[in-house]
């Protein structure tokens, strides 16, 4: 038994969370540095996972398997495929930035030396806890294990959304608190509802496997094997119901239209780093799970549901973009833009082509980075002015050019400018969809025009024009803030120009997923590559 690398990757932030929470009340700075170091350590571990992962090797690597609840066939099974490696990497990468960006977000308003209340410690501990849970959700190959952490994630997220909001709010502190708790409860209820339906499906899956295999199991690998050996043949209607149960939970998390309304509230009311945590990290579990569990466990039902899901994804794309155009609140605008982007991801997954699914996986990573860059800059902006309303800004470019520049690059990444990472993934998704569903592909392409509209309108209203009163003394980005944003921008450019390392890891995994579903890429009508390649 070799060193349990995957367990370590998930356990380190969890232990870090405990340690951070235990730091005494007055040693806030220690807690911050501790959290940052732990997140960096996790990043190192994730990097080791990525290095030790062999793209051309077995489907699941670095596996660990132990019996857990033997009576119900629940096992503690971890393993990574290329998709999981990419997403664990994304999570481990973003958390240090989130922590650094939220450095002062949880400082107590007034110094109280005697207070036993430790918001700062709690804030960073909760972030690390979320990281641990997200990582283990990506690593789990046991459905039940996955389910537990998929749901448990809600608890720290609930506190992060409800407990730590923006300092300033246009309607005053009391109203801010009310809005915040509304957003947190809404987040919790939506995701809980999805999760409970999934629980029913998880139990149903157990019933089916125990019925057909003799002993029930939740192990993804076992189920895939049994399916390949034709030992397991779920009845069509049962499979569809189970699929819907799983998909519903993931669609809430993703979020897919019309289950999206929690996201704008949650992102709007939480601080920018937490908004990034929601949309760039936690929500990715939903789309990841669609790719791993929905397609892997229920291939036939996935095919059956594809048309409806594609239409929903398409609605998300266009609807999210249109609503983003109509927003007056910067953070809500980004939230709706994210809904549009999640539409792209879901569309790529269910296009059932290698381009679509590789694109969707890249999209998850790239959307994480680009949203983080944009949202964190917006957070810095909001923390300076104390307002989230677009109308309160104007001419920032003149007083804070670096801020405006990074904002613009983040925005351009959001609108998928070629040369930046999101373009690669978005185009792959579009091509992948178009190859099989031309009409849907074309309509989805309209999304790129709408993306330009909402990003540039936002930029124009906030950054250009005459300087709005109250902004004359707006300070430009500080060193800490530049240090947060610059690597993200470098990554955006790097992955936009040379995404090959990532695609090399992801492609074989997508190949496995596609063969699970039994789909092959459509062939071009007149293959023109013959002599050329």
């Amino acid at each position, binding site marked *: 038994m070799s060193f349990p690398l995957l367990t370590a990757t998930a356990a380190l932030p969890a232990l870090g969370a405990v340690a951070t929470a235990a730091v005494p009340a007055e040693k806030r700075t220690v807690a911050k540095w501790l959290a940052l170091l732990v997140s960096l350590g996790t990043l190192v571990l994730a990097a080791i996972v990525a290095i030790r992962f062999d793209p051309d090797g077995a489907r699941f690597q670095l596996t660990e398997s132990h019996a857990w609840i033997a009576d119900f066939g629940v096992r503690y099974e971890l393993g990574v495929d290329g998709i999981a490696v990419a997403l664990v990497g994304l999570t481990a990468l973003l958390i240090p930035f989130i922590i650094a960006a939220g450095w002062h977000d949880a400082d107590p308003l007034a110094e109280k030396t005697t207070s036993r209340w430790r918001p700062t410690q709690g804030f960073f501990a909760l972030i690390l806890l979320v990281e641990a849970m997200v990582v283990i959700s990506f690593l789990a190959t046991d459905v039940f294990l996955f389910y537990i952490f998929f749901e448990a994630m809600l608890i720290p997220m609930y506190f992060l959304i409800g407990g730590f909001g923006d300092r300033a709010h246009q309607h005053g502190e009391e109203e801010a608190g009310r809005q915040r708790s509304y957003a947190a409860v809404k987040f919790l*209820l*939506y995701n809980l509802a999805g999760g409970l339906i999934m629980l029913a499906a998880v139990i149903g899956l157990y019933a089916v496997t125990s019925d057909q295999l003799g002993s029930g199991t939740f192990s993804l690998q076992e189920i895939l094997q049994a399916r390949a050996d034709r030992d397991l043949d779920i009845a069509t209607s049962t499979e569809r119901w189970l699929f819907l149960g799983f998909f519903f939970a993931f669609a809430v998390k993703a979020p897919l*239209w019309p289950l*999206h*309304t929690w996201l704008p509230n949650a992102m709007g009311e939480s601080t920018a780093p937490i908004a990034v945590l929601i949309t760039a990290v936690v929500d990715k579990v939903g789309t990841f799970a669609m790719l791993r569990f929905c397609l892997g466990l229920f291939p036939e039902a996935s095919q059956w549901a594809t048309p409806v899901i594609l239409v929903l994804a398409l609605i998300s794309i266009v*609807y999210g973009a*249109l*609503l983003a*155009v*109509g927003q007056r609140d910067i953070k809500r605008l980004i939230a709706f833009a994210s809904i549009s982007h999640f539409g792209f991801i879901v569309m790529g997954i269910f296009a059932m082509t*290698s*381009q679509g699914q*590789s*694109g969707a996986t890249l999209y998850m990573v790239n959307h994480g980075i680009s949203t983080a860059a944009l949202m964190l800059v917006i957070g810095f902006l909001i923390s300076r002015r104390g307002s989230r309303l677009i109308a309160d800004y104007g*001419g920032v470019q*003149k007083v804070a050019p670096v801020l405006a*520049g990074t904002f613009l690059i983040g925005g351009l990444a959001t609108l998928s*400018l*070629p*040369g930046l990472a999101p*373009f*690669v993934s978005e*185009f*792959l998704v*579009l*091509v992948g969809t*178009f*190859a099989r569903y*031309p009409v849907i*592909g074309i309509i989805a*392409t309209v999304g*790129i*025009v709408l993306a*330009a*509209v909402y990003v*540039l*309108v936002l*930029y*124009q209203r906030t*950054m*250009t*024009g*005459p*300087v709005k009163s109250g902004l004359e003394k707006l300070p430009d980005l500080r060193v800490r803030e530049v240090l947060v944003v610059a690597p993200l921008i470098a990554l955006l450019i790097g992955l936009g*120009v*040379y995404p*090959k390392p990532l*695609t*090399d890891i992801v*492609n074989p995994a*997508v190949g496995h997923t596609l063969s699970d579903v039994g789909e092959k*890429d*459509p062939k*071009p*009508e*007149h*293959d*023109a*590559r013959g002599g*050329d390649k």
Partner: protein
Amino acid sequence: MESLIGLLVAAPLLGAAVLLCGGRRLDRTGHWLGTGLAFLSFAFGLVLFTDMLGKDGEHRALHSHLFSWVPVGDFQADVAFQLDQLSMTFVLLITGVGSLIHLYSVGYMEHDERRRRFFGYLNLFLAAMLLLVIADNYLLLYVGWEGVGLASYLLIGFWQHKPSAATAAKKAFIVNRVGDFGLSVAIMLMFTTFGTFAFGPVLANATEAGESKLTAIGLMLLLAACGKSAQVPLQSWLGDAMEGPTPVSALIHAATMVTAGVYLIVRSGAIFNGAPDAQTAVMVVGAVTLLFGAIVGCAKDDIKKGLAGSTMSQIGYMVLAAGLGPIGYVFAIMHLVTHGFFKAGLFLGAGSVMHGMNDEVDMRKYGGLRKYMPVTFVTFGLGYLAIIGFPFLSGFYSKDHLIEAAFARGATQGWIFGSVALLGAAITAFYMTRMMLMTFFGEKRWQPDENGELPHPHESPKTMTIPMVILAAGSVAAGFIFNLGERFVHWLEPVTGYEHGHLPEPLNVPLITGSAVTAMVLGVALAWVKYGRRPVPAVAPRGNALTWAARRDLLQDDVNHVVLVRGGEHLTRSLVYLDHKVVDGVVNGTAATVGGLSGRMRRVQNGFVRSYAVSMFGGAAVLIAATLFMRAV
């Protein structure tokens, strides 16, 4: 040699990176760095060009594969370059004119505190534009395509503190995005049809795909070209784009970027050759824009907007030629190059005039400037002669060939497009003469600026006049040189095909040339009658309905505003409302219903033990009933 291709792009890209990230330290020297790198790139271009000349016509194309960009399954996008004669032409035009305009900007932007950033953006533009023309596949071309869009966005909105500039920049980008939509779909179509989107295999096998597929691809490419080259119906951004600094208008919105659409169509010639319907669409778009731009150009009093209308119209010529098929490709490119010279020269002249006139752009407030700015007057005048097709200047050759090619199409189409081209030539002569007369002739109509100072027109500094002189020389001589022994035609033949010599029916070339010259003379005469003989009123007269409409860009902006902007606003607003009330409302409604029901149910829980006991007792009764019932059944 192949490695030099990459350096072509790398030099200005490095400049952009250094200038934009370098910070204030580079404020004093940055502009020279940017200019130097532009010239360096031009030097690379020249080296490659001489190397290319040393080879046989068919083997001149260079290929350079840098690395695999996005490999996913069958989707193999590479970062690879292809430098053939067509690309080479563009490289020289871009780096040559680009370098001159860099030089010009050193003087023009001297007093702008953000000059360093301006040069960064200019370098970024050069890099993107070069990438566009040397890419060897459509996806990489797309990167350059959007890259120039970005640079254009940044440069139009360079004076972002002016809301009009910011709005114009945004508008340009969004309208271009509509065009990009077309390019995206075209690439996707190519991928599904051919399994690749590299120029080589796609264009070589274009004939294998059916006509309908090719038509679809062609129309999508046309949409892309319309966006980038400001062709009807996506032309509305170009006039507003004049909010940018004048060197930007000269480089991006006259000489290079806006001609990218023409490049795209000519590059994809093989596709259009197989899709006659798409070709017709291209010609229609070109012809309509040709007239549209010319009419708008006649009505504008803003010198830059007038030139913008002219640009639109001239690119209309090129698109029209590109739509004619292999016959027209060479002439489209030739007109593109000569247009690059004279239009850039004209813009630089306009910039020089504005520089001397306290940034006044209204031609009605100019007048009699020829004495005060002799160099500008001469260079502008030469550019003017070139554009109206004055015999033996560059515009004469390129436009004349273009009109011939249009007539050579034969049949009704040939006559229609030929006549449109001739009509366009007359209108061009009219509005350019009007511009010339209003600016340099007549009496002074100068107005004090907002500080109450009358302008003191003066000649611009050397950094500005030298590029103007060089460009003027180009506008005079380029056409003649290109036409010498059909040199330009033979140069491009390997790329565009050899069919230009074989006109389908014998044409009376002298007659056409004669008509073109006559049209030009008529236009000049009419303008002289209207603006030369009588003094120009300092306030624009009302004019007739057509003038009114032309001043408003033939109402296209108004239509856009009503249909797209207003409609979009209403749509988004109602969607926001719907999202809140309906989508969210359903969920909140469910929650409210459950809450309400719970409120009712809660009353049952009244806290009295006896009340609970009743329910227990009732439950027991029900259990007995159930047991009895089950036994009975």
